[in-house]
């Protein structure tokens, strides 16, 4: 076990469980979600918080959920891997590509209702080989549904590099086998993603069918908090950290003569309202039995 000293006990502390942080993947979130409206649906996988933020999920209630509080989006039952915020059409789940069929279902619903909603399903590049995703490509294609599949390619599926498990290297080529438009943004750049996603989301919204869009991103951190990353070279870790799209966006903006002060001001306009861990609402410490067992499955869902 030499060298494999994990950061901490993931069953302890304020934020337990497998927390997957998304630093380095912001471009994929912002570049796509900028095209979306509240009533559009996004499904996200285990690495979800950047997407949630970009989709406009309530940050206080998401933070409360991460801390397992009653005031959280899921009353502390879902946790950081299963964030639901139906006000902005966001749902996350942690089994690989489990969100793809539901995204297809949201798109099908839009089509049935003759509305122009779009659905976006995010997955990681490691999930390109999972049946639920592949079946969803066909379903979306044969029904010409308004859905965009976004693959965040961060080179790694936990410890497995892409070419060890997936053929071909360019995941957007999967689309070719399903009569679907495929596209790949080969560099981690929010503007490039924004442009490609504009095409894809627009295509969907205008009723011209689904798209598979792969986007290069970077994994600045370990797979989940506590993962010692013994499988990953220091060089690779540094390279990923260096390719920070936020920093590079700042550089691009500077090239347009936007100064540091202006940049700082821009940063301040971002969502800063979320409260720290201790201020997110009552702890779930009181004997929770009743709340736990009621609503096992049945919120009232009135039928008009």
């Amino acid at each position, binding site marked *: 076990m030499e060298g494999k000293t994990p950061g901490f006990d993931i069953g302890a502390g304020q934020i337990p469980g497998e927390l997957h942080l998304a630093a380095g993947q912001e471009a994929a979130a912002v570049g796509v979600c900028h095209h979306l409206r509240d009533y559009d649906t996004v499904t996200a996988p285990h690495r979800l918080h950047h997407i949630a933020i970009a989709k406009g999920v309530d940050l206080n209630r998401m933070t409360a959920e991460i801390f397992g509080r009653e005031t959280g989006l899921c009353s502390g039952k879902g946790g950081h891997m*299963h964030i*639901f915020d139906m006000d902005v059409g966001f749902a996350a789940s942690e089994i690989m590509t*489990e969100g793809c*069929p539901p995204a297809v279902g949201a798109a099908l*619903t839009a089509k049935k209702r003759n509305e122009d909603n779009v659905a976006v399903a995010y997955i990681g590049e490691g999930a390109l080989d999972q049946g639920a995703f592949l*079946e*969803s490509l066909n379903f979306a294609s044969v029904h010409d549904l308004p859905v965009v599949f976004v693959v965040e390619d961060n080179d790694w599926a936990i410890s497995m590099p892409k070419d060890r498990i997936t053929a071909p290297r360019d995941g957007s080529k999967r689309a070719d086998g399903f009569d679907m438009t495929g596209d790949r943004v080969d560099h981690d750049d929010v503007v490039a993603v924004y442009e490609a996603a504009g095409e894809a989301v627009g295509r969907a919204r205008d009723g011209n069918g689904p798209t598979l869009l792969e986007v290069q991103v970077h994994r600045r951190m370990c797979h989940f908090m506590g993962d010692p990353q013994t499988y990953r070279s220091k060089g690779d870790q540094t390279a990923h950290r260096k390719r920070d799209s936020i920093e590079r966006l700042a550089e691009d903006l500077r090239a347009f003569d936007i100064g540091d002060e202006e940049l700082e001001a821009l940063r301040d306009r971002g969502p800063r309202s979320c409260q720290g861990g201790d201020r997110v609402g009552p702890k779930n410490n009181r004997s929770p039995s009743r709340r736990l067992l009621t609503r*096992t*499955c*049945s919120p009232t869902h009135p039928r008009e």
Partner: protein
Amino acid sequence: MAVPADLDRTMTMSGAMVEVIATEMRADEEMFYMGEDVADCDGIFDSTEGLREEFGRDRIMDVPISETAYIGAAVSAAQEGMRPIAELMFVDFFGVSMDQIYNQMAKNTYMSGASVSVPMVLTAAVGGTYNDAAQHSQALYGTFAHLPGMKVVVPSTAYDAKGLMHNAIRDDDPVVYLFHKRLMGIGWLPAPDGPKTGVPEESYTIPFGSADVKREGADVTVVTLGLHVHRALEAAEDGVDVEVIDLRSLVPFDEETVLESVRKTGKLVVVDEDYRSFGVTGEVISRIVENGLGDLDSVERVAVPDVPIPYSRPMENEIVPDSDDIIDSIHNTNS
């Protein structure tokens, strides 16, 4: 037995189910039905007979043979407020789509802190008795009942099928509605007489968790469901005064009706068509033992032994409990 005896409109079980679906679909434009061969073919088990003619292919939707994709799509359509029914042709196919069924359909309401609901019905055909072998003959009741978040319903007659289907469609939670092929009244798979019952024209619901005493009796309690309700009723003609309880739903489970009967008889025979171990029979017995151990003199379970269902007719007949097996067990409780 809860059926009004004087009804002269008799129907097959599939006929009753289809009537309900049509009625509910007329009332709610947001309802639709997805499955393989449900449009032009009327459902392999007549589960959508005539519906495509009335509602068209957009609402009676043939789907790709991608159970994961379309069941998952139904889950989110339900979350969006639509009311889908998704048909899994044979329950034996659950293995290709179980993740969507149990990790999404069944859990999303709970995981989301009840901020979403999943008002959908998942139907599936169950059961053997026609030599369809290991991959097409299972009941798998226990597999679904064990995993929380789904209601699990098993009708045994046309009358019950109607009331339970109305309830399933109107329920705001996911309901797994398991119908036995042998009871449907399909042309190529003749049903016994039992399931064809009188069925009122008007709509009515049968609440889940209400077991039905299909035959009153003083000596032995037989608890069962689905096809085996009829086999138990047959067995009850053998002399002993048997009470036959049809569970009708496994989740929720009507403990009270069973307990009450056992308090009277002291003898419990549990019969089903699922595998014996870690399934329905064990659960029924344990519920009684937990709450009425003192009332219990003897217990028997009658189920499929723990092997896959064999193809050949004498072998399958040996494996699937018949009325003789039930009679034997009834006698055992008396010895």
